[in-house]
């Protein structure tokens, strides 16, 4: 094993018992907005992972040089610089997806997970654990986004990553795509169901 058990916990914990969406209920807004299709959900997940990881490392390196009173402004400068870079990269290399995501790429700045990890972890830890923590939380977020997007795209549009997967014969027998899946309320209900299943499997997480 390359990673020590402590490091592995940092990286893999957010994928299950410390998941930002399921347990801390952070980053819900974008989880509802970009999960109608798999492709934007995947791109959004990768972008957030990159921003969380890089901003955690940079701010962890700067952590002794930042005066506590102005730390939020410094964090915002770093995060927004990274988000602008991501936005430009998407516009240059994945223009269609960038169009679909529209303002939500810019709104990564306000994603609670990023600021949350910086405040709660990166400012008090060394760069290497901060990097692992950032990657882990970003992946945990991307994982839930992909689960929700899988069901929404499959049942709502009958496709996955834009490719039709439900055979045409089903439609001729009377199957129809579910329009509610495309609408944001169903994303909220699906996130709720995922949280329900997760709590049922991890009974220690159930709130009294």
């Amino acid at each position, binding site marked *: 094993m390359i990673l020590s058990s402590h490091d592995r916990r940092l990286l893999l914990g957010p994928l299950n018992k410390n998941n930002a969406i399921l347990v801390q209920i952070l980053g819900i807004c974008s989880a509802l907005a970009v999960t109608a299709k798999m492709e934007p959900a995947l791109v959004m997940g990768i972008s957030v992972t990159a921003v969380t990881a890089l901003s955690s490392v940079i701010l962890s390196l700067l952590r002794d040089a930042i005066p506590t009173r102005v730390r939020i402004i410094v964090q915002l400068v770093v995060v927004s610089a990274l988000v602008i870079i991501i936005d430009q990269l998407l516009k240059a290399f994945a223009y269609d997806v960038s169009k679909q995501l529209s303002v939500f790429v810019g709104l990564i700045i306000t994603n609670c997970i990023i600021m949350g990890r910086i405040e709660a972890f990166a400012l008090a830890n060394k760069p290497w654990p901060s990097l692992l923590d950032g990657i882990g939380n970003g992946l945990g977020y991307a994982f839930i986004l992909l689960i929700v997007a899988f069901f929404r795209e499959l049942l709502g549009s009958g496709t996955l990553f834009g490719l039709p997967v439900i055979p045409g014969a089903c439609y001729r027998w*009377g199957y*129809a795509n*579910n*329009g*509610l*899946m495309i*609408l944001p309320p169903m994303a909220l*209900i699906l996130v709720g169901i995922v949280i*329900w299943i997760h709590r049922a499997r991890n009974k220690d997480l159930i709130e009294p």
Partner: protein
Amino acid sequence: MKSLRAFLDKHKPAFEKGGKYHLFRSVFTGLDSFLYVPARTTRSGCAIRDAIDLKRTMSVVVLALLPALLFGIYNVGYQHARVTGEDVAFVQQFLYGLWRVLPMIIVSYVVGLSIEFAAAQLRGHEINEGFLVSGLLIPMVMPVTAPLWMIALSTAFAVIIGKEIFGGTGMNIWNPALLARAFFFFSYPSRVSGDTVWVAGLPDGLSCATPLAEAYQGTPITPGLETMFWGLIPGSIGETSTFCILLGATLLLITGIGSWKIMLSTVIGGAGMALLLQHALPADNPYSHVTVLQHLLAGGFAFGAVFMATDPVTAAQTGPGKWIYGLLIGIIAIVIRALNPGYPEGMMLAILLMNTFAPLIDWCVVQRNVTRRIKRGRVATRA
């Protein structure tokens, strides 16, 4: 009947703790209390057991629904005969309707009851009669052309997400039957609106609009007031005949199960808003030509006001709260009909919206009462 009782008594031990079929005890007790009045009495605390328990309440509502249901079944056959131009007798029209509607009722009951039974088993709860009414209401608010699997899916959604998640009968925030219709409405919009969904077996190329759809498209409403009152118009299965709904309303009011405050205030709110819009809208707006009576007779207004808004679980509980709740349902339903370009009918959305706000209304009424009584107490001590 004696033999049935004896049969139940004979098999009872197997379902009790330690028995062979202990896992299915709530199915057994559910069946037992469905067939016979339970001999149980309250053991602890100070409680009053009314003769009118959940089972009796639900049976009365089912009875009240019967006129509208039977008429709806006949109307399905009547509309079918009308568009196809067949000249068939009354009995045949009724049988055709039965052939179309009965499967919908069976699907709704089978799906809903199996989920309720399963949920009760999992939780160790007793089965109760809460779904008896919802299971009948669901097909009655659907268009007759709704495919059975869509009804099954909508029912499952309403029972799981709308009811069981919140803790089962009596704990739900929204009316389950309307939630099923809302799911159907937003999931498969082309199956629940438009000109081709309201009449069973409509020949290709023909269309048949409901009165509300006509108003929505800006054409004058063709059926006369009398036809709309008796109900020989296209529409969802149970909603067309205002006369039969009034029969049901009478039973609900006599037995005291439906709240007259909610029914009356809903009609007042709807009539007031309809009157206002009729005069306030510019003459080129089609809804300025729809009269108050047409608004009250068309679509699901009467059905919603009598059977949906008065649902004792999801409606407001306090007296003044019921008035506010009903008035707002009437007003919002007509506003959605006339001012929202998206949907021709607004009763479903109005009731679901007010279901959401009912606890808040009750809370305000209770708080107002509390402050008033505190003030009265202060005045008394000062004097």
